[in-house]
């Protein structure tokens, strides 16, 4: 599945998107965050405070316990500051 990063999540990881293939045990957004945080130092830094991370699946906001099955695109970003 495609994963996108925005704002300081993007800056810390050092890329704006990538394709990942997490193991079958990664079922929810929370699981995916935990798995990504184990992919190296930059990921650990980006996801060091999971509760501030917001997620969207296929362009819609989701809660962290949402299942990721069937998602084409998952995005992670800090709280929004538009307007």
């Amino acid at each position, binding site marked *: 599945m495609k994963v*996108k990063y*925005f*704002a*300081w999540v993007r800056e810390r990881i050092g890329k704006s998107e990538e394709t990942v293939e997490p193991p079958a045990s990664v079922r929810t957004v929370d699981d995916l965050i935990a798995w990504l945080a184990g992919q190296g130092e930059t990921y650990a830094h980006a996801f060091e405070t999971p509760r501030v991370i917001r997620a*969207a699946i296929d*362009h*819609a*906001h989701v809660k962290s316990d949402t299942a990721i099955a069937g998602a084409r695109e998952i*995005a992670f*970003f*800090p*709280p*929004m*500051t*538009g*307007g």
Partner: protein
Amino acid sequence: MAANVTIRIQQADFDIGCEIAALTEGRIDIGAVVTFSGICRGSEGDEAITALTLEHYPGMAEAEIARHTETAMSRWPLTGLTVIHRVGRIEPGENIVLVLAASAHRQAAFQAAEFLMDYLKANAPFWKREEKPEGNSWVDAHSHDDDAAARWTKS
């Protein structure tokens, strides 16, 4: 006549007079137009700000704003809505965002414009980075913006 909804995310500035004209020209069923324009300030508290850079999530930003304009159209009797959000680098004094709501009556126009602004502040996928003399930093989200957005949620 059907309601006009315009949503644009763009680097370019906008002209409020033109946007009002686009919603009202040739119509005699509109009694009230409310515009909100958000402008980049040169300071935040005691700190000077040199510029903002606005990042957004293409695709999701448009979809989310569209969903909220639909909510506004269903909640208030509106004849038109325009939302323009700029992205890229913006200097103090420049426009950031425009929300325009048109209706037969003033309460609907005021409430729809406030609702959309509260939504954009708290939930639309845009992020601001500030350039300051002492370095750049991402703007922190404000809990009062979440509170402002939450007041529109029906219990």
